[in-house]
């Protein structure tokens, strides 16, 4: 989830979610940044309304 959290930091700080920014956060956390995962993250988020995606529950409601 590190990459997602990195995107969330940038989102909540109103910063651009781009490769360079995600990479520097990942590295600041002491991790080796995986460029292809970062690219995949950025690509996936491109067309997404992040605010909405965050607010929409991703879990199927279990039938009681």
């Amino acid at each position, binding site marked *: *989830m590190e990459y*997602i959290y990195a995107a969330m930091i940038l989102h909540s700080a109103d910063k651009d979610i781009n490769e360079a920014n995600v990479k520097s956060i990942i590295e600041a956390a002491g991790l080796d940044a995986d460029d292809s995962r970062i690219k995949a993250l950025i690509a996936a*988020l491109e067309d997404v309304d*992040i605010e909405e*995606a*965050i607010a929409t529950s*991703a*879990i199927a409601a279990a039938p009681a």
Partner: protein
Amino acid sequence: MAHVAEWKKEEVKTIKSLIDSHEVVGIVDLLNIPAKQLQKMRQTLKDKATIRMSKKNLIDLAFEDSNVKKENIVGLSKFMEGQPAMVFTDMNPFRLFKILEDSKTAAPAKAGNIATDDIVVPAGDTGFEPGPLLGELQQVGIPAKIDKGKIVVSKDHVVVKAGEEVSKQVAGMLTRLDIHPMEVGIDLKAAYEDEAVYTSDVLTIDDEETLISIQNAFSSAFNLSVNAGVPTKETIVAIIQNANSKSFNLAMNASILTSETTEPLLALAQSEMLALASAVSDSEGALDEELIE
């Protein structure tokens, strides 16, 4: 400091060296702190923090001397009140505040105490046999009666509102009822670290809020990962399930027969039919015998 007594000079020097050798300096008020509790607190903080009482003017002198190296430490001065004491520690000041808060204990109310929260006498059995207590309770407005040979408070009653003073009569009553509404402990008025003075309102940490923040952070990240289709090891299963559920919903709601939906759709048809049948079951002749059974 020509006229200053030697012991005072020594004291200022000692305080200064304590200040210089600790990251964090806090100010507390020990007035109204029972000796026993102070003893306990010192025990709790052993190895982590040192509490030192002194005279306000000597502390101020030490602050002024230290201010060269620890800029802004004189800012602590205005928080000294009552019986001021210093706390020296290398702990994070928020941590220090929390430890002090968490070690506060309940104590009986005394006449003249100001209630920090509403003081409530809860409904229930007081454990007392019928006697003069009943009248005394009623006198301070507590709804009480005799039930099964005991004095019983019939419903929760606020005897002192937050911010109000506890009267002698109420204080005595609360003590007899074994209600200890006051919090006794050391208040950290302010703490200094790294040129900043933190006041108690800043230092307050709400555990519940921390927990909620963590959970929100996790849910938000989780939702983003699943809804944007960014697979992670924590979310890949949910991503699959989400895709499957949505597909299943579409097939069911559009009545599209697939390997997964044919049987549920048949069952749904039957179930809907039974539901409609039951809606008309009061009308004679509307249903065939098979359904009436």
